[in-house]
């Protein structure tokens, strides 16, 4: 209680932070109001039994992941295989530093509600720290304004972590266009004018992937890409030096941070995958011998 009083007197936090915290209080206040006064005209069941199998799958996977997180927390060392694309990140930033050219980072086309974008922002944090340490310019053109705003915060924090807040340039992280090809045209222009020595493409990409990667290739930049979009992987593989395939993108944060909790979750994920694999094999065998009941177990 004293702490709250202290807070409202303005003792422990700066004005800007206070504003942010007040914003969060307003968030919870409105949430509470909306829940209390929400209209629920229809009588609905507590549990949707049609989604029970789905829920069971999520619980199994969650248990696997939390189990390994728990063990990682207790200090158990877990092995993660080498991911070439991520190991080459330092090399790419180093090359840009040697050449005195900027690094270009693209967070993909999706908005902040997409997990690929969030993963991409985590990788951006690591790369921004490296560029801050090497005093190399980092350009982050964004396709979504909320992503831009978040990216600015991430890069700023990375510069603080690298003890180089003076080198942070807010203007280097900017919004271009929500339109897919308008964005591509803008990024291609940056590539041709600024000639970045290293291009990173991490996140959700669509048809623009090849246009970006080919233009980047024509400027002679070292290129590293990562996406979970299966249709764009062939384009990145053809035009980039390194590509993170599908789930490797999600593993990137754990791989780069070496945080035992994150590595633990990777291990849990693998066990979950193994369980699903067993279910697929079992399903194939049973359905081949006309035991179709297993299909119904997985129907939603």
């Amino acid at each position, binding site marked *: 209680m004293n702490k709250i009083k202290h807070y409202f007197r303005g003792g422990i936090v700066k004005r800007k932070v206070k504003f942010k915290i007040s914003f969060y209080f307003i968030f919870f206040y409105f949430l509470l109001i909306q829940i209390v006064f929400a209209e629920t005209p229809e009588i609905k069941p507590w549990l949707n039994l049609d989604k029970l199998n789905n829920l069971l799958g999520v619980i199994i996977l969650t248990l696997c992941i939390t189990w390994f997180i728990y063990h990682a927390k207790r200090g158990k060392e877990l092995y993660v295989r080498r991911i070439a694309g991520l190991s080459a990140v330092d090399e790419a930033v180093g090359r840009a530093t040697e050449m005195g050219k900027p690094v270009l980072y693209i967070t993909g*086309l*999706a908005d902040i509600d997409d997990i690929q974008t969030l993963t991409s922002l985590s990788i951006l944090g690591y790369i921004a720290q490296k560029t801050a340490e090497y005093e190399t310019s980092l350009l982050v053109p964004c396709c979504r304004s909320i992503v831009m705003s978040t990216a600015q915060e991430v890069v700023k924090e990375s510069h603080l972590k690298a003890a180089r807040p003076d080198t942070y340039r807010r203007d280097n992280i900017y919004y271009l266009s929500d*339109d*897919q*090809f308008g964005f591509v045209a803008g990024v291609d222009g940056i590539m041709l004018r600024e000639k970045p020595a290293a291009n990173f493409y991490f996140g*959700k990409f*669509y*048809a623009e992937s090849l246009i970006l990667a080919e233009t980047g290739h*024509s400027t002679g930049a070292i290129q590293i890409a990562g996406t979970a*979009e*299966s*249709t764009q992987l062939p384009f990145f593989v053809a035009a980039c030096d390194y590509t993170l395939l599908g789930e490797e993108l999600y593993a990137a944060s754990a791989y780069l941070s070496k945080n035992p909790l994150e590595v633990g979750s990777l291990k849990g994920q693998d066990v979950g995958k193994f369980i699903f694999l067993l279910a697929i094999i079992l399903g194939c065998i049973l359905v081949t011998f006309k035991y179709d009941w297993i299909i119904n177990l997985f129907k*939603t």
Partner: protein
Amino acid sequence: MLNKLKNIDRRIIFIFIFLAVLIPLLKPINLPTQVSQPVQNIYDFVEKIPEGKIVLMSFDYGPSTKIEINPMALSLVRQCFRRNLRIVGICLWPEGANLSREVFNLLSKEYHKEYGKDYVNLGFKAGGEPTLVSLGKVGFKELCPQDIDNKPIKELPLMQEINKYDSFALVLTFSAGVPGIKEYIRVTASQYKIPVAGGCTAVSASEMYPFLASGQLLGLMGGLKGASEYEKLVGAPGDAIKGMDAQSVAHLLIVLLIIFTNLIYFLEKAKKKT
């Protein structure tokens, strides 16, 4: 010499591609089109829908992919109008609103369809997947109070029959990315069990096959090829069928280029060995 050929200026390749596309467009070869099963599935399903039923059509593409997707939309609207099915149009992409307006304007005149009674265009709805989820829960009347021209939907007779997704016999989406076909599969097909079919760009067609195999997607038109197949089925040859000649020659050229680059690769390898 081999090195020169290997590192050929890419602008030369660009010129070849340009000519491979241009010449067949100016001088068509009229190659025959064969209909694939995923496209046939959509046609057959639409043919079986009883007259007067309502179809939801989502125009989730922009001008960049218009050339690939628009012929699909034209063919499907044509078939629905011909079969006296009623259409409610919606767009999850802002640019889709204008494109859908063009499609409806063109074909409503041809088939003498009346706006508000035979078809309605709700225009752009922001928010993507969360909006689709809300449409299923709250319904169209609350989330779409006005149509594309800001006319209250209370004044449109067709909209009086629309409540939630269960008002539709089929959901068709013409999708060039996100939000699009996958979102409709996740929401309308998986949660509300309404049949979903649609078309997408050729580049993303391969991604849709798992959904076709699982039955979550009723049928699929992949790129200009899929559109040309549908034009053939509907019996209204258009831009897609015309474009297939150009696409054929361009594909052939790329194959020849790959053979050529592999020849250089193997010759170089043999030279190194000797």
